[in-house]
């Protein structure tokens, strides 16, 4: 008889093994899915996961997608460690892109690189302000942040759509819902003219190190960890939970906002309605897949970035729908949640004792 049994203490091994098992299961089910779609599963998985990384260009494109994922994920780590379930990185990202674009449109004639500074600042503060709404609702009215941040995501999306269809629309853009192209000086510097990869990846790596240090070494990071682990202990120690809530949400909003403005001043070069392919949501998967640890999050953001590229790749090469990206991301989260169960529980094989057949179910 196969039986689930609570482990005496959480398994550390399983905590790190669980994401790997989840990835394997995702690949397995993905392969089966490709079979049903009428493709050779190995070839399809190769196209999805390997082919994008067979060139330098592929790796630089990966970096472009890692940057926003990593920025959002590091901010979310702060929140999730405090058990503040901020689902609003997507909205904060969009507001960052929107606020940054409004600023960038004021500098269409700029030829100084310094114009980037107020633009990045505007984007960061827009994301921060958007998170501040959720922080205010939570600390003032005790409103559940899961609900408020999800709702604010839709408000942000509609604000973006209003912007690109209305006041921010390029007057010379043939009525396309897009802003004017930003001035070259207000675009993030790239490492090489051959590739699109820009310095936003450095922002992301810097944020990773900063948040890592903050969580591991600083007093505020410690307080956030205690608040998340055990709110009563935080109260006993006299930590100010409202201040910590504000801090975590604002920091996350700022990082997501920076990611948003880096997107419009980076690979896009203008504001478009599809500014985010769901980076803010995918970053949630990144955080959990990466075990809230910096290196884990780095690898997880690379994997999630790869799912975006793989989706585009199978669309181009095999004429399969790009929505496979979402499917793979969803499967990953699903299997991760399932295998995480085995951190606290284990499966044991036990021969059923003949005399206690009726008692076993009650034990």
């Amino acid at each position, binding site marked *: 008889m196969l039986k689930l*049994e*609570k*482990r*005496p*203490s*959480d398994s550390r091994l399983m905590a790190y093994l669980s994401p790997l098992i989840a990835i394997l299961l995702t690949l397995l089910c993905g392969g089966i899915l490709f079979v049903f779609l009428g493709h050779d599963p190995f070839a399809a998985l190769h196209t999805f996961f390997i082919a994008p990384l067979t060139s330098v260009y592929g790796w630089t494109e990966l970096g472009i997608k890692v940057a926003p994922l990593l920025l959002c994920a590091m901010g979310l780590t702060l929140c999730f460690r405090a058990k503040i379930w901020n689902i609003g990185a997507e909205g904060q990202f969009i507001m960052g892109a929107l606020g940054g674009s409004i600023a960038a449109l004021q500098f269409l004639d700029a030829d100084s690189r310094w114009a980037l500074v107020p633009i990045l600042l505007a984007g960061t503060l827009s994301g921060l302000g958007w998170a501040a709404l959720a922080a205010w609702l939570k600390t003032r009215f005790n409103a559940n942040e899961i609900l408020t941040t999800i709702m604010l995501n839709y408000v942000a999306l509609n604000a973006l759509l209003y912007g690109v269809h209305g006041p921010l629309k390029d007057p010379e853009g043939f009525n396309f819902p897009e802003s004017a192209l930003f001035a070259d000086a207000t675009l993030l510097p790239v490492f090489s003219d051959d590739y699109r990869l820009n310095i936003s990846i450095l922002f992301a790596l810097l944020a990773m190190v900063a948040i890592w240090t903050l969580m591991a*070494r*600083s*007093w*505020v990071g*410690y307080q956030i*960890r*205690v608040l998340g*682990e*055990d709110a*009563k*202990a935080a*109260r*006993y*120690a*006299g*930590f*100010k939970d409202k201040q910590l809530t504000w801090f975590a949400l604002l920091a996350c909003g700022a990082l997501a906002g920076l990611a948003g403005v880096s997107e419009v001043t980076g690979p896009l070069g203008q504001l478009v309605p599809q500014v985010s392919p769901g980076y803010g949501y995918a970053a949630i998967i990144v955080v959990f897949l990466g075990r809230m640890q910096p290196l884990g999050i780095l690898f997880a953001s690379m994997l999630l970035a790869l799912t975006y590229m793989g989706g585009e790749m199978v669309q181009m090469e095999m004429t399969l729908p790009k929505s496979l990206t979402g499917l793979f991301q969803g499967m990953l989260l699903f299997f991760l949640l399932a295998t995480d169960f085995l951190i606290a529980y284990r499966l044991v094989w036990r021969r059923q*004792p003949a*005399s*206690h057949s*009726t*008692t*076993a179910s*009650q*034990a």
Partner: protein
Amino acid sequence: MSSSERLHLQGITKAYPGCIANDAVELRVNSGEIHALLGENGAGKSTLMKIIYGVIAPDAGQLLWHGQPQVISGPSHARQLGIGMVFQHFSLFETLTVAENIALGLPADQAKDMAALEARIREVSEHYGMALDPKRLVYTLSVGEQQRVEIVRCLLQDIELLILDEPTSVLTPQEVQQLFRTLKTLASEGCSILFISHKLDEVVELCNAATVLRHGQVTGHCNPQHTTSGELARMMVGDDTPLSENYSKAQGTRVALDAKDLCYQPEDPFGVRLEQLALQVKAGEILGIAGVAGNGQDELMGLLSGEERQDSGSIQLNGTAIEHLSPDQRRQLGFAFVPEERLGRGAVPDMSLVDNALLSASHTGLKRKGWIRYPAVRQFARHIIDRYNVKCADEDAQAKSLSGGNLQKFIIGREIEQQPKFLVCSHPTWGVDIGAAILIRHSLIHLRDQGAAILVISEDIDELYQISDRIGAICDGRLSPIAPTQSVSIEQLGQWMAGQFSDPQPQQPEVSHA
């Protein structure tokens, strides 16, 4: 009744991951016998009880009921056989009446006729001297009365074995005496009683057979009537632990903590309202506050620690008003607190002992400019572990991996090593083995002798008598008079715990010591 054998356990073994709760346990209970099951916390008493009551199936061993092997498939089967159990934590619906609660546990045919049931409840409860009004709503009953409901519920069925899990821990001394009378009546009518306790004087008073468990194994059978409580304690704790100690009493010097006119209405509807509460603790003394759980202890502790904010009133430490300060600000002035809940308030379960050492001690130079000085924190944690003999893998062990006693030693150590001027301890040795309890009491006395003011809130009256210099009780949010421990008899304290005192005089004049 003849002393025929009613229950016989043979070689009962039950293992959990990481520990053997019961190891080949033998137990015989005769009819009409009041049988004590003794042991420290974690000795395996509760597991054994749950096996008898059918809640848990044993891994090995046999249960004989009236000499016949029985496999008890669950509590309802146990009740059919005539086995009843009163758990430490009652399973009553507070918004239902006594009769409705009892009806829920009965077979449908008996539960239908409420009028008849109410009459039977009255009859049975009066017969055994524990009067109950079947129409009362349970939440209006005292804890002692709620326990009666649980007992009467068992008695309504033809009961042959009644199991009571630490029934006296929630009762006042007077209620304990009443319960004992009831149990003796029951036993004289032939019912067997299995009485779980770790209070030896109660066992000596009540029981005529005893089985002692230690680390899951039976370490002795005896008749408490022919045994001293010292011998019983020896069987419980093993050979090398000192059993009890006498501590010298001290006289406080000047008033360190001075709380006046504290009023507090908790948000929790089941909380206890504090009204005009006044309390003075002197430097160099231990003040003990007795009381049955849920009489305002948590609220008082919350106000003193700063986790809750009083509606009105003042609290001063050495003349400085602190009632408006947060817990961490109070700590900087020399407060320290040992809360009742160790895991999940006094310590973060999933964090290491290093991180837990920092929880309340950050102001003692363990951080600088917003950054944590981890080498210093680690050293502090190690120091606590060495000095307070905390048994753990190392300082990186998770708090939840420690036993209750060892975690309590760690928390007490963390608070005492901050050299507080005022320490509040809630239930300092609750559920702690005797060795750890002695170390904790020693530490408290030592801190007192260094001049700290200490307030101990506890349900353990023996302990309060041992370590307190002055003693009082709290009942229903009101504080009894407070007097030197030697001058307060246990009967007096029992009356105070039951609320029998005139309204407290906040500025009680110095009582000359007895």
